[in-house]
């Protein structure tokens, strides 16, 4: 209890902690939203790939002194295009193309960052350091959240139909490719925002875990989006509390919290929980 009180006192006292909390919650919300589409489209690996592939963009942005968003968005979309190109032009499966491209991008980014030898702390890029979030980072994250929410609201019906039945959507003339790259762009923006909160390595967890948890509780897409965003936010809040209290790295703390929420849902959810399955099994026996 005293640690909770200490956390709230800290929140009142320290500007950096407030900034960290607000940023982390916004990242939880946006990754919960985009992650829902990612898992329903069977693109978890793609989410992992794009988030890793922005690393050279981060390095180049530091070198040129431009905003990280532009470098990351450029390399994120480039990676998505390359993956599509390799998968289309060879007989290789999609996941193989993903594996080749994202590891190459990640390796390139790693080398570029070491070359830059700037104040960029590779460890922080990889695993996040939410307590070092600046006010301009907060503004950036806020802007990304607005863009992600707008994208989802404006294109909700197109995202829904192209996720559920892409061939039907394509047959009636919907530009499913444009939508796919739009989603990839959102993914890179989320990645940039989540860099400092959870770090590149663990972003995929923020995309996949809250969405998967929400999926266990509902059979409605709209509800799933709201639930996933909420679970992302709650994971960020609780994770940050642990991070502050026990001096754990913020990214792993948030991701572990999300994983625990998933585990609880996995056991308890009425729709497809383990308890229900066990009970069902007993009844059948």
């Amino acid at each position, binding site marked *: 209890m005293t640690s909770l009180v200490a956390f709230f006192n800290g929140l009142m006292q320290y500007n950096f902690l407030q900034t960290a909390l607000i940023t982390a919650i916004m990242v939880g919300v946006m990754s919960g939203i985009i992650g829902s589409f990612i898992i329903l489209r069977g693109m978890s690996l793609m989410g992992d790939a794009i988030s890793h592939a922005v690393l050279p963009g981060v390095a180049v942005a530091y070198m040129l002194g431009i905003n990280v968003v532009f470098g990351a968005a450029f390399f994120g979309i480039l990676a998505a295009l390359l993956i599509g190109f390799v998968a289309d032009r060879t007989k290789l499966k999609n996941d193989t193309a993903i594996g080749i491209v994202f590891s190459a991008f990640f390796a390139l980014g790693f080398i570029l960052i070491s070359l830059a030898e700037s104040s960029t702390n590779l460890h922080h890029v990889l695993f996040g350091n939410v307590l070092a979030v600046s006010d301009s980072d907060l503004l950036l994250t806020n802007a990304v959240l607005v863009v992600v929410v707008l994208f989802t609201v404006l294109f909700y019906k197109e995202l*829904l139909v192209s996720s*559920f039945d892409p061939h039907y959507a394509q*047959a009636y003339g*919907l530009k499913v490719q444009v939508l796919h790259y739009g989603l990839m762009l959102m993914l890179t923006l989320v990645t940039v925002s989540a860099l400092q909160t959870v770090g590149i390595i663990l972003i995929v967890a923020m995309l996949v875990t809250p969405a998967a948890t929400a999926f266990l509780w509902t059979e*409605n897409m709209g509800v799933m989006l709201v639930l996933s965003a909420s679970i992302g936010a709650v994971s960020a809040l609780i994770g940050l509390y642990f991070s502050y209290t026990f001096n754990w790295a913020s990214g792993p703390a948030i991701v572990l919290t999300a994983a625990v929420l998933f585990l609880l849902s996995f056991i308890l959810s009425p729709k497809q929980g383990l308890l229900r399955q066990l009970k069902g099994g007993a009844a059948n026996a």
Partner: protein
Amino acid sequence: MLRVKGLSAAYEGTPIFSDVSVDFVPGKITGIIGPNGAGKSTLIKNMLNLVKPVNGYAELNGVPLVKQAASVAYIEQRAEIDLTFPIDVLDVIVMGTYPKLGWFKVPGKTQRAQAKAALSKVGLSDFAHRQIGNLSGGQLQRVFVARAIVQEAPLVFMDEPFFGIDMQSEAEIIRILKEWRAAGKTIVVVHHDLNKVSQYFDELVIMSPGAGVVAHGPVAEVFTQANIQAAFSPDLGNVLFGSGKADSAVAAGKQEVAFND
């Protein structure tokens, strides 16, 4: 008139058929039949540009089909749908209104009312709020037909709509197809069950592996022993049309002559 002009298709470099030209008559139900590997599904996927043809294209009333894709209602093979998707029956049918709504417009009361009407037309009113994974194969296929009803498209493409579904669903779907025919729509159905060809179709496109379209025209003219023997096998032609000596094992299976693509 829906026309296919000089269409050639390949899968990963291997040609499937080349230079296919066929007309599909409005107000008729056209079946596409042929053995595995003949390219039946490929033909419609190429027509709709879901798979890029090597050559040629489909046009509707002189304009390439890709430029008027909203005129197309496509019901693909059921196996390709994710049945765990968090969506209920009514919301799937509402998707039929998306092509007309276009970007940025949200389906509202009118669209939901349309969807409900279509749902009752296929006899599934009680299932509006079921998650789609909780339906039988036949019920699900009727849901996709209801979505096509709502879309009000002049062209309907169906890929194996009757594969593995119950008799009642099959009958309901046929009833809707006949309504569409009466309304002058062009209906194209990839089909595997040769026994019901004369019952279900007005026109027929018969395809054969490597040869493309071997015959097309009114069922009465092209559904002949010679054409089936050419496209499938001599034995099958004999069994189906009841002449010549057929292998007894094949003859015993006469009621179940089926080809799955």
